[in-house]
């Protein structure tokens, strides 16, 4: 099971965080700080896995953004790397050539996509077709509802 996923920039700024286990805010902050430091200090050619406490940290860098997941002992590292990859593909498909700014300004959308992709730390759906469809359906409905609500009520 995935324990948490963090997205942060090369400057060490957190861009997205999703925790699948219950932790105190203080612990979360401590872990985030520690991990950002560990991951940023690693050389580019080093392997993408770090053993950290009793967890395995899998990270991958896309442009200026680091995607970092913590998984448990029995989970597969390479597969987690591909989960990150698929998530980026999904973001890319939704935003169209995704960049860090997309995630900063539409981070709730990034969360929605993540929620369709992973539930409770387990993979829910991997399809590159059905996830964007589910998101778009919701978006569409939102827009129509928005229009509906915008109508004057007198």
């Amino acid at each position, binding site marked *: 099971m995935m324990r948490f996923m963090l997205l942060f920039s090369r400057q060490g700024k957190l861009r997205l965080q999703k925790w699948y286990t219950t932790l105190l805010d203080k612990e979360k902050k401590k872990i985030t700080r520690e991990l950002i430091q560990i991951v940023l200090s690693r050389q580019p050619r080093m392997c993408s*896995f770090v053993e950290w406490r009793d967890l395995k940290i899998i990270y991958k860098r896309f442009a200026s953004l680091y995607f970092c997941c913590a998984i448990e002992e029995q989970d597969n590292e390479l*597969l987690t790397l591909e989960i990150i990859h698929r998530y980026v593909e999904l973001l890319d498909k939704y935003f169209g050539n995704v960049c860090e700014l997309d995630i900063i300004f539409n981070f709730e959308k990034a969360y929605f996509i993540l929620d369709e992709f992973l539930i*409770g730390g387990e993979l829910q759906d991997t399809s590159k077709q059905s996830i964007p469809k589910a998101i778009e359906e919701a978006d569409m409905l939102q827009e129509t509802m928005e229009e509906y609500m915008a109508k004057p009520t007198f």
Partner: protein
Amino acid sequence: MEKTLSALPSLLSLEPGAKLAAASRLGALVRGITELASKQKQMRECLVRLIYCEMLGYEASFGYIHAIKLAQQGSLMEKRVGYLAVSLFLNESHQLLLLLVNTVLKDLQSTNLLEVCMALTVASQLFPPEMIPAVLPLVEEKLQHSKEIIRRKAVLALHKFYLIAPNQVQHIHDKFRKALCDRDPGVMAASLHIYLLLIKENPDGYKDLTGSFVTILKQVVGGKLAVDFNYHSVPAPWLQIQLLRILRLLGKDDPVTSEQMYDVLDESLRRAEINHNITYAILFECIQTVYTVHPKADLMEKAATCNGKFILSPKNNLKYLGLKALTYVIQQDLNLVLQHQMTIIECLDHSDPIIKRVTLELLYRITNAQNVTVIVQKLLEYLRESKDEYVTISLVGKVAELAEKYAPNNEWFVQTMNAVFAVGGDMIPSDIPSNFLRLLAEGFDDEVEDKQLRLYAVNSYLALLEKDQVQYPQRFLQVMSWVLGEYSYLKTETKPEDIIEKLHCLLGKCSVSSETKAWILSAITKLFRLTLNVKVLPEVLQSYGNSMDSCLRQCSFELKQLVENREIMNTVLPLDASCDDIVVDASLSFLDGFVAEALGHGAAPYKPHHQRQEEKLSQEKVLNFEPYGLAFVTSPQASSVTGRQSPAGLSIGSEISCNSTEAGIKDSNSLKLDGVKKVWGKEGYLRKRESKVEALASLGSESETTTDTSSKTERTATVSEEEQEKQQLASSLFVGLGSNNLVSLMGKPQSSTQKVWRKSKIVEGQNGHEKAMNAQKTIVPHPPQIPNLMDNVGERCSLFQESKAMPLRKTSSDSAEVPTEQPAQGYDRSWTPSNNLKTIKAMPSASKEPFSGLFADGNFDIIQPANCRSAFEAHDQISGLAPSLPEEFAQHAHSKLELLCANENIALFSCKIWKEDCLLIPLFITNRSSVEVHNATVNFALTDELQTSESTDFPFPVVQSQTTVKCHLCLQMVNPCTQVLLTGHLTYQLESSHCTQEEFTLILFLIDFIRPLKLTTEEFGHLWLSLSNDVKQNLSFAPNAPEALSSALHTLQKELKLHIVDIIGTEGIIACQLLPSTPCLLHCRFHGGILSVWLRSPCSVLPDCMLYECQKVMQNVQL
């Protein structure tokens, strides 16, 4: 999108760095939120920004309630953001979550797909165990939904529920099966998450599904799924990996099940050829599966080739995984390490510390007595470089383990441990120093060598303390001071005064913590018994006699008293007797007079802390403000109880009444000792050592090289110097790994907790005897094989021969002696039923003889087919050999006599006798053969839950033919649990043949140990207040008649052997006790068809267990 555009400037200004601006913006948000509470659209905007603020690290708790409100009241689009905000802001234990339950319930029932999706998502992310019952029926219903996305989410929500509260979803296991057969592959894949968990817990329960999983995997691998599931043209890799994991669990140690999956594993290995990460991920799982299931040679060969691809890959990721797989694979096949030894050597100096570390982990697994020095050296090197606390702790433990196990000599051992203490610093787990000290104190059986080791330690510490500038970690100082205090007398050339002086210096340093100071002070105290020169004493007393630290103060006062009174000093601190026990009066009975006097003067009697607290609370309490506690089914003890049914049909609202203070007191009245290693037991360590092993000290490890490696070195004779260095390293690292036989002799290094070096002290008494029995049992069938193994391994193996075989031989002779020790007792217990004398003669003894003759000289255990048992039973009934209960037992309540195990020679009968003070288990051993049975011994293996005051061994030197002997065991339950297995075995010899062993099992229930507790209503009231652990539960109870309560209580009384103290109106109080003497009080209240039961007990587990029993009884009544 207008939202993002309008948000841009404000969000930009929120970037940290502009902290002030952000803080003022936050203030504006607070105002904005309260003003705009009615305008949901703006609220949505605010919440999105609030999420962002919180991610940046600002406190945003003021907005949580608004997130919940938005999820509750908003239209669809607001709801979506509201739910998102809730799931990001709140966690399982947040109080505001209670406000969300209704919203989720409403949305689950909605006809709008999106609302249902959102509700399911949030339920699977946030819900704590106690809220699950509220939504469970609705989520269950969704398993039949027509849309696959809903079904999938419902399955995943149930998976999450299963994770946090397994008992609550137990009743829907068959629905999981339906999900597994779902027509949509996505739903099926989701259900695999649950199956992985289920199978991990109980692999035997799902063997029947193996075929289905194999078929699914075959279809997936064969590309039968829709293209939609492909990932980089690999069909459903996630699904494949999940299935491989499940198959691994199912096929472990099970040849039959493994047989079914060989084909598909082969297929998977073949298919994964494309050079992409995802195929490597599948391969990695495949390799693990192949090496976990029952081994098949050609598959393992293929997997090994695949693993080679990983290790030799230039990509660091794959190299890392390859090495990791290797640590896994070498448990089956050590030769693979030899194949890759050069790569491993290279990885040892890899620039990436992670790869280095996984290589060291691999080396740790292949350590043996010959390469231990090199490997430990490498580990210590890494330790010195590493800064990570977690790494240090785990590596330090490993080094200490290896050093204890394989140390070639004393000097090396002490030096290595010194390095461990120095490097590990204060992160070192406390069991390492205490284990080390125990080894020193306990010694092994060679007095001379013990002395040498201790003297060496003393010398090395004195040398270390010579250095002035160095600061040592606290734990290291503690070890030093203990050793110096205890064993300085061995070093005759140094005066004790000098050592005292040194320790005194240490005491003055400010870097030394007060805990360490206490260690040093006690060392100084011990040293004063060696000398009459008390020059330093006044100074010590002066500086610590009025120390603020009460512990140090006490130490110095003790020191003062002991120095003044040499006689006491010598009794309290005898030389070289750290393992001896000193008799103390633990009950402090000498203070009784003082207490009596104080009471006489009107002092209040002492009450324990929790009782005071409780009374204070009960005075204050007017209204019940107790929050909903944990549902009882999820308490950790409860989930471990086997056979517990789902309470869904029974419980309406379950609660543990616990306000915060009460929860705090729970369990506090007993010392928590689990996890704490017991170093100095009550008996000390001066038990009789029944066997000893020569230390493996005389070992010249470096000089020896294996044939494998030396041949390799020859081949590469002309390589560069650097290469040669590596080769040398390789030969010293991989020495002793050449042969498979060695592996089996060594055992799996990581699993063996028993240290080989200076070990094999068999614990005396029952335990030792049991071990001896096992040892004997295992050694008997194999004697011819041992020389074979030795031949193969050659000289190097002689070490193992010594260490393993010797204690075995020793113990087997020990066990033979045991029965002869108590012959008289054995005879007392033998008992012949009076009514079977005639039938013995009538028995056709000839028909039995061929049997016994056939099996008499066999070296094997006789396996009795299960269905033979009933036949034997019938036979026994006819022959009248089945014993009847003697009068002394029959007067108590008892169960029917049952056959435990039987073969043609011997039969075992038992029953349960519920005596008032214990559960009596009588055991009747009937000799059915026509010859005498010798040296019969019954041995019970008691689990932690049970205790007995007597021995668990019952020897019978001789059992005459066709007679029955008996023995009995009085049991009490120390740790409550609903069900416990009592296992035992019977060993005996027929004539002069080998020992045969029969095992038997009895299931004991909690109720067997429950007795009524006769109390008056007042006594009940007092006791009730003094108990701190309680559990409340409502049981639905159908008949709503006025006498329903009393009938219910009487049922409970009858079924559970309780004592009804009083029934007043709609309330009743009941008391019982768990043997030996743990009371459990029940308070029942009946209203509106619901029986609410409130249980209290001093033991935290007992109320849970009793509640479970009550539930069972009530359920049966209703059925």
